């Protein structure tokens, strides 16, 4: 296809057909490869015959251009595959009769056929990158890469407009343009191809921006294509967005397949800036011209790239207007846009699933986690806790975030499944630090739970805000020997114990020290801001815990003393205590002239609380007892009872209904 484009002189009507023919061929080749995978030789045989016919139809084009590379590839692969099957005597015996027959027929045919293409096949086989099961669309990409190179080299004498056309041809020739996409790639670009691809896309974008009268979209049918009439706006069939998405997927695959700890990885990472740039440009283009769906897809791509990291430069740039971290502001409108379309996993998400190899569920989890971490950084502990709760409460945070493989060692995992799983993983540079995640969760849980526990110490009905946190606490208590904390979890547990006493300094010391800094706090951007926020939170929550725990002992406390104890300024103390009083968490009054908090001492003492508990338990006992009665007395025993308790009523009518049920069953026979 490469040389054909360069042939100038008007529009070649064959060019339109050329694309179509090749599309037919690619589809057939796809089917053949599928059949090869499932070892269905009969299907292979059928498709091969169809392929031969289609190729014949495209013969005129082929005559002009030469055999397309992908075709050569399928021929070579098919022959190799058949030879393998033939050698495998064991497998042959196991194959059913049809397959075996088809195998021999196909082998003969292929042998005969390939003799015509001997030279091409041998030249193909020599190219090292040509091995491996690749899909047909890959070939086209490859071809397109080469043609791009070819194109760039050739000089175009016919002037600007022509170059536009030809460029568009190139665009159209991309299979992605044809509304394809979502084909599973296994093989990726070699690096030179990749770079050229990036460059060509850049150029295409330049062109599109420069010439606003070009319309390019998926919904433009072939018939309404307007390529020659310069007066009217030029409409081209194709989709720039899919092109960019495919490129993005390629990038992801490259990252997935590269060893994360090698230098290569770092090199590839540098390309990411360019990828982001391209995506940004596409998005701005789409915002003027594209449909809402396309805009959303563009947003999605951008979100996928930005949500997990913090760009220092961008942050400084946007510090002025936003005054907020870049990660927060873009994801909020972007995520809102995406969320609007894909909130509950309807078709739009299906579209997203098609576009990215990561499942929507993993994406959702990752965004939630990122939101949680951002919220924590801003000091919104409750939101942070809620966001992270679901992920942390299941033990499988690794899998839920797409950063680790499910250990399904009990079941058999064939190669296919492993490959699929691996493909669903997020590339390494996008991994979220799991320890950081857990630490953020535990610290926000601590800041929420300890005051709550202190406030509801005697309540029989205490709700646990976070089960994981309680679990950690209990594990910590069970230790026979309590040494100085080592791991991150032990630090948080020790800090919680200190906070329970209202001792904020010890708590602070446990949360922020060298070990924790190294593991967690330094990994935050703007670590110092986070730390000051944390200290402040610890002080405030310790104050509240202290008041809850010891309010029954005090008659009155001076606010100055409190502010001195917790190193908070007086207005803050005042506001916190006022909030507690308004929420009826603390029974006290504030005395303005003396700046003291006067306790009302209305809470029940320990003994009274116990008596209340006893009363509750006795209530339960009586209820249980009466249920026994209902059971025994049956029909009328419970029927005339209090109608409020549905259970009782059911129990009362139990015998009767039992009788009915029996009759029903008899009728059914």
């Amino acid at each position, binding site marked *: 296809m490469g040389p054909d484009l360069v042939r100038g002189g008007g529009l070649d009507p064959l060019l339109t057909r050329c694309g179509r023919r090749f599309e037919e061929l690619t589809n057939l080749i796809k089917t053949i490869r599928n059949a090869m995978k499932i070892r269905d030789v009969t299907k292979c045989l059928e498709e091969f015959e169809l392929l031969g016919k289609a190729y014949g139809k495209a013969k005129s084009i082929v005559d002009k251009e030469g055999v397309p590379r992908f075709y050569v590839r399928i021929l070579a692969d098919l022959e190799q595959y058949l030879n393998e099957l033939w050698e495998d005597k064991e497998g042959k015996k196991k194959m059913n009769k049809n397959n075996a027959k088809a195998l021999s027929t196909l082998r003969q045919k292929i042998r005969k056929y390939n003799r015509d293409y001997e030279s091409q096949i041998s030249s193909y086989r020599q190219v090292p990158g040509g091995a491996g099961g690749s899909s047909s669309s890959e070939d086209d990409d490859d071809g397109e890469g080469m043609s791009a190179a070819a194109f760039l080299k050739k000089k175009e004498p016919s002037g600007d407009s022509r170059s536009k056309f030809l460029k568009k041809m190139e665009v159209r020739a991309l299979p992605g343009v044809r509304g394809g996409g979502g084909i599973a790639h296994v093989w990726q670009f070699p690096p030179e191809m990749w770079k050229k691809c990036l460059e060509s896309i850049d150029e295409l974008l330049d062109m599109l921006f420069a010439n606003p009268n070009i319309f390019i979209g998926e919904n433009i049918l072939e018939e309404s294509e307007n390529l020659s009439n310069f007066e009217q706006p030029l409409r081209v069939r194709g989709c720039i967005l899919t092109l960019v998405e495919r490129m993005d997927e390629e990038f992801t695959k490259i990252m997935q397949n590269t060893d994360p700890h090698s230098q290569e990885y770092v090199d590839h990472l540098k390309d990411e800036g360019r990828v982001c740039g391209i995506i940004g440009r596409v998005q701005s283009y789409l915002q003027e011209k594209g449909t809402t769906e396309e805009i959303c897809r563009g947003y999605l791509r951008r979100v996928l790239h930005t949500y997990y990291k913090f760009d220092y430069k961008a942050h400084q740039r946007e510090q002025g207007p936003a005054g907020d971290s870049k990660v927060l502001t873009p994801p909020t409108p972007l995520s809102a846009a995406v969320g609007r379309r894909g909130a509950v996993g309807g078709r739009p998400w299906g579209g997203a699933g098609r576009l990215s190899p990561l499942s929507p569920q993993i994406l959702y989890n990752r965004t939630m986690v990122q939101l949680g971490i951002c919220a924590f950084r801003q000091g919104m502990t409750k939101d942070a806790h809620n966001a992270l709760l679901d992920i942390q409460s299941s033990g499988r945070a690794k899998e839920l975030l797409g950063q680790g493989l499910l250990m399904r060692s009990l079941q058999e995992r064939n190669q296919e499944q492993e490959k699929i799983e691996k493909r669903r993983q997020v590339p390494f540079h996008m991994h979220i630090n799991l320890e950081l995640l857990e630490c953020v969760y535990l610290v926000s849980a601590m800041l929420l739970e300890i005051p709550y526990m202190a406030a509801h110490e005697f309540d029989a009905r205490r709700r646990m805000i976070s089960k994981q946190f309680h679990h950690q606490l209990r594990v910590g208590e069970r230790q026979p020997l309590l040494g100085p904390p080592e791991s991150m979890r032990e630090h948080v547990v020790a800090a919680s114990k200190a906070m329970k006493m209202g001792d904020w300094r010890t708590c602070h010391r446990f949360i922020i020290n060298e070990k924790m800094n190294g593991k967690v706090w330094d990994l935050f951007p703007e670590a110092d801001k986070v730390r000051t926020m944390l200290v402040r939170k610890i002080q405030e929550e310790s104050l509240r815990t202290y008041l809850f725990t010891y309010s029954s002992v005090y008659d009155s406390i001076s606010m100055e003393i409190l502010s001195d104890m917790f190193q908070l300024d007086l207005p803050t103390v005042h506001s916190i205590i006022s909030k507690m009083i308004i929420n009826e968490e603390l029974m006290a009054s504030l005395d303005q002239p003396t700046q003291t908090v006067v306790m009302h001492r209305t809470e029940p003492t320990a003994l009274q609380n116990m008596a209340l508990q006893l009363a509750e338990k006795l209530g339960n*006992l009586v209820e249980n007892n009466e249920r026994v009665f209902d059971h025994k007395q049956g029909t009328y025993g419970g029927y005339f009872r209090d109608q409020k308790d549905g259970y009782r009523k059911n129990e009362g009518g139990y015998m009767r209904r039992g009788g009915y049920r029996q009759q029903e069953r008899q009728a059914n026979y």
Partner: protein
Amino acid sequence: MASRKETTVAASTGSSAAASKARSKAAPGDSAVKQVQIDGLVVLKIIKHYQEEGQGNEVVQGVLLGLVVDDRLEITNCFPFPQHTEDDADFDEVQYQMEMMRSLRHVNIDHLHVGWYQSTYYGSFVTRALLDSQFSYQHAIEESVVLIYDPIKTAQGSLSLKAYRLTPKLMEVCKEKDFSPEALKKANVAFEHMFEEVPIIIKNSYLINVMLWELEKKSAVADKHELLSLAGSNHLGKSLQLLMDRVDEMSQDIVKYNTYLRNTSKQQQQKHQYQQRRQQENLQRQSRGEPPLPEEDMSKLFKPPQPPARMDSLLIAGQINTYCQNIKEFTAQNLGKLFMAQALQEYNN
């Protein structure tokens, strides 16, 4: 600890057989003992034993020695059981008892077994272990009693020593070892009829009485402060806690019983259905001329669920009753004390 009792009782049966022969036969259905007469010595020994060895939750136990006279059980002496320590794993209780009794006989002290004593913690003595021990004692020696000494109540001002026996009804049930609901219903045993309390008289010999009078004159009577102490919330708190635990257990027990009932009725239904189906099938078969299916053993197909033993719930109920009694007494006394204190305060102001 209870298991010791059973072994020792068998050994001492022989020695007390002589005692029982001397006694008159009590009317059937009636308890053989109407009164317990305890020597001062026994009381003092019990208290001393507890003070020396019984701090904390541990219960201390010992053997009571004495004689039966008419319908009175006279306890004249006792000796404590040493605490079971790990080093003397081969500590033979029976041997120890025999030794003690032999030694006592040499010194001409009553050496006949008449019962045993135990200290208690806040009144929690209605346990399975106690029941078993007392049953084995009473089975061997009809007049046995168990003395329950409550040290904490004693520390609050009044000696708390109670003698308990198992009722004859309960004895019957225990003999059968059948604790299912039906058996208990037949025997008409409720938790009130489990233990009967026997009134206690503390008696001293005349000589001791004379000495006590002399001592009284010589030394000043110690002020009984503890009786007037107002601090009782701790005691109350602990009692409440124990009570709540029992109530919880009771709840669970009832739930268990409930599930059992539900299961049985469900099974009945299933059985019934199965029978119906079988009949239908047989009818069909008959109409077609085939031989009817054999009647299968229903009990094999539908194993009825086990009825839960009711003895535990009886014990729990008894225990709750005891707790309630204790708390009642305690709170009544304390209320009185609080009113007194209030009156005094008002008088002083």
